[in-house]
């Protein structure tokens, strides 16, 4: 059973392979996700990680549909409000938590 690692509203799920489709982009950025309201960010402070984003039909103009991590060397992810977590080498899918909006009646991403 694949293991999960959670830091706040971000969940890292171990996967076996990555499919970026037609619109994919890789980078070595250290900020994985920035909070909209607080400005706090989930940051990679140690290790070697390649961040792979899969975009939709809009390409890089829109937000990525999925984000994957290729952890090549054990990495530490830190955040101002949560304790750091360690990711062992491997492939991970980064999932952001969602919540329900009772005014609009739809789901939306959690606003950190």
């Amino acid at each position, binding site marked *: *059973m*694949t*293991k*999960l*690692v*959670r*830091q*706040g509203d971000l*969940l890292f*799920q171990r996967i076996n392979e990555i499919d970026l489709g037609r619109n994919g982009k890789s980078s070595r950025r250290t900020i994985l996700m920035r909070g909209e309201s607080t400005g706090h960010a989930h940051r990679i402070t140690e290790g070697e990680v390649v961040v792979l984003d899969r975009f939709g039909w809009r390409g890089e103009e829109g937000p990525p549909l999925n984000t994957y991590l290729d952890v090549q060397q054990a990495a530490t992810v830190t955040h101002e*409000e*949560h*304790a*750091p*977590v*360690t990711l062992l080498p491997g492939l991970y899918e980064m*999932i952001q*938590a*969602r*919540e*329900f*909006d*009772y*005014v*609009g009646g739809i*789901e939306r991403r*959690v606003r950190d």
Partner: protein
Amino acid sequence: MNWITALSKLQSKKRFKDRYQLSSSCQLQYRDFDAVAVQMYSTDIVTYYKDGRVRLSTGGHWTVTTKARINDFGPAGWHVWSDSRTYGDTWVLSEGYYAYSGNSKLYPFEDSVMIEADGSCDADPERLLEIKEEVRLARNERAREQSAMRRWVVWAREGKQPRKPITLDMIEEEANITVKMAKIRLYGLDRYLIEIKAEVIDTVAEYSLLRYRATDRVAEVWARNIVALRMVCPSTGMVYIHAVPPQFTKVVLALDWMFQTESYLERVQQST
């Protein structure tokens, strides 16, 4: 139609026994010694008297078909119509077909209304003006409520705070459920659920599921459940509350939905 026309039809060769078929649902019949009625199914919708009086009735069936048959077989020169925008549910009896000509006398159509031989009506025309004013005020009130509702929903969606800060009492006093939800959003769902001490319906480890039944005092029923997942961060001790869809009653299912995965609690290794 009038008394003489009705009587002549009843005495004509086209009658069947003592009745004359006017349409598939209406027939003319004798009533008492000096009255002839147009009977629609089992209701006398129009009754002509020998002295020239006419009684109009619906028998409780306030339908468009009844209205149409009264106009078809009713007294000449009188018309029954309705205008829900101006008069609401009330039907209007007018002397003259063109109700808006200005010369027509208008009366509220009440069941068993009597039109006298001299052309007067026993209904009170002043009552119609009162009804018109009541409908106008109710429409204005509804428009004001809808405008306020739209305003609150837009503020909630855009995250704009109103000039007066929202208080718990303002939320509790709100009668409309849509505006109440918008105010809760602006106040902060987590803060609101903590302050009103929402019911805890399930607890697993540091997670608990909270539920609040929001009532709609306009409809006088409880209208919506608000369900939220309360999480305590193991490392910092901070409490986070996030709304989940109202159908969830178990923490396990709510967590799986929130993180779009399966068996979250069994598989999670680290959680901060």
